[in-house]
């Protein structure tokens, strides 16, 4: 790592960005670097452990959490392009170790330095302008964990509004769950389908060119449904627009 006063940020890539849309990860790196951070990506990361945690498997959750703790011990900040994964580290890891006070103290320290990407840019780095350029209409879905566990609501809208040429068209019920819910969407696929169908209706009603959100899980769910319905709406992670990295394939495919 370089020897300057820049904050050292460890990027928690998230498994879905790593596997499905690396462009989102590189967009995050670009935004963080533009904000004056030194970014590195620890190799020893896989996933935040939510599939285990939400299936009631505490033992595996703990092992994965410890892996994250070790991998990110040298950084000033841990930043994830996902409200869900960031909330897992920030809110839930300390809960998981309620019965181990010493470990819990370490996870509380990890919690203190962990942020969701966009709120980190605005609330910690005080960024008001993003480096990207985009012209068109967008609608923004508030993903549940980011919204209700981390208070991410105005931050992405603020940055989007400050981009020349971006028009935000708010959808109805932008704060209502899209029906992803991790394993929920395959375990209870019919309920999930009913939920995402209401969501895509609300998205279509805005007539926006592009759907944005801050979480790959929700985005893949909504993109998958929009595509199945034959919608032309492009679906992207908000980081891609903020960074102006729109050359990669959108989550909605072509």
């Amino acid at each position, binding site marked *: 790592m370089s020897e300057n006063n820049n904050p050292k940020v460890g990027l928690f890539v998230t498994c879905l960005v790593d596997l499905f849309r690396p462009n989102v990860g590189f967009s995050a790196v670009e935004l963080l670097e533009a904000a004056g951070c030194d970014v590195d990506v620890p190799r020893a990361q896989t996933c935040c452990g939510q599939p285990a945690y939400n299936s009631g*498997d505490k033992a595996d959750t703990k092992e994965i959490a410890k892996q994250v703790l070790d991998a990110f011990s040298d950084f000033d900040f841990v930043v994830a392009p996902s409200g869900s994964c960031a909330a897992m580290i920030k809110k839930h890891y300390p809960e998981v170790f309620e019965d181990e006070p010493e470990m819990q103290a370490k996870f509380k320290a990890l919690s203190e330095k962990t942020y969701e990407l966009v709120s980190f840019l605005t609330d910690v780095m005080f960024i008001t302008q993003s480096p990207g350029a985009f012209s068109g209409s967008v609608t923004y879905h508030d993903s549940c964990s980011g919204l209700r566990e981390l208070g991410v609501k105005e931050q992405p809208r603020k940055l989007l509004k400050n981009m020349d040429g971006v028009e935000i068209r708010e959808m109805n019920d932008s704060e209502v769950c899209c029906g992803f819910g991790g394993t929920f969407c395959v375990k209870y696929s019919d*309920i999930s389908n009913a939920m995402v169908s209401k969501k895509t209706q609300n998205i279509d009603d805005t007539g926006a060119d592009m759907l944005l959100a801050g979480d790959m899980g929700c985005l893949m769910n909504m993109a998958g449904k929009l595509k199945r319905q034959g919608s032309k709406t492009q679906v992207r992670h908000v980081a891609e627009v903020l960074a102006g990295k729109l050359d990669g394939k959108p989550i909605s495919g072509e």
Partner: protein
Amino acid sequence: MELTSHNLKSNVKDALGNAQLQKALSNVPKGFIDKRAKAAAALDEFEALRDKGREIKDHTLANLDLYLQAYEQKVIENGGHVHWAKTAEDARRIALEICQKHNAKTVTKGKSMITEEVELNEHLLENGIEPVETDLGEYIIQLRNEKPSHIIAPAIHLNQGQIEEDFRRVHTHLEDDRDMSEPETLLAEAREVLRKRYFEADVGFTGANFLVAETGSSVIVTNEGNGDLTQTLGKVHVVMASIEKVVPTLADCSQILRILARSATGQDMSVYTTFSTGPKREKDPDGPDEYHVILLDNGRSDMLGTEFEEMLRCIRCGACINHCPVYHSIGGHAYGSIYPGPMGSVLTPSLAGVEKAGTLPNASTFCGRCESVCPMRIPLPKMMRHWREREFEQHLQPKAARYGLALWAYFAKRPKLYRALVSFAMPALSLLGGTSKRISSLPLASGWTKHRELPAPEGRTFMQAWAQREALKQEAK
């Protein structure tokens, strides 16, 4: 409590395919959500009252034995009777004994979820006593021989046309040209029919929103006034309530009342808030000759001291249900328990066992909207997760899910192995997406692809691409 929660998936299919139900459900969000939000915003101390409510209930639960004994003492001092029912069966038996002692032929009932929980109506009918529901919603579902689909709006799964049909079927005296198209006209008709029944009834049953230890009072909140008539016109008033309804003082009760109706319907207060304290006294103009309280445990004391204790703070406002997108999609009956939605998904396994109701806490996306509106700040998603932990410990989850999870965890805990696997798998999956970059069907992923396309991966993983970027940087130096 008859449960069909284990049939959740087929219940869901039926619910999603039921056009009448879906039409009725579309009214749920508009009916409740904005009203609650406005009511909460209009009261500066609303959030502080939520904290206070939690504090009152936590304190009460920590001293539950004490407050229940104090409450019992007061009821007896006021001339009432207290009966302790460990199980639903006990509660039914005690209720029947009271009715039989008074040779009751019909009993009126105010709205009460506890009598639903113990299936009082069925038990009375089996023993030749006719229960008459007096809350409009309960009256309607009684006409239809159904269970409530919501704890405060029992007939919310129905549309006006269906209800009108039921009235015309049962109320044969109705003229064809009588307008029955508005809730008010339905209510007026139900009132007319019910008025007679109040006077015929020998016993009136109500539930309780609160039991006040300080005074021995039972408290009900209603919007129709039916509860008042039920409890004052019969010779005998029987309150059936669960043990966690007790609060220490009238002041505590009034604090919580300020958030109850606001959270439920967005009203500042319900239209009627009625305190009953014992039977008619010498100079009282009206009231029952006898006053009984049946205190139901039915598994609740087993929740004390466990990770589910906080559920006992619930005041049955229904806000979690009103805000639940899963409930909005499937309605209340699909849950297969009289307690639907998030509160039911935590409470039902507590009362009936996780082996019978474990599907319920799984049917949640953990979106957290329920917790965000719960006036008592019950961490509902966290408690649903605790049920999943119990299921996991007892190996109750389906085999495929268990093995799938174990396989995933094996790799997730071994970053090097995980890297090797995904570095090979993702480019392969990407090829499968072809030029359209989407996958319409995939073995083992039918839960996903049944309703949606799967976006194909870009190709290389982020980590592969990052490693290359770093290597190039090193070379440049």
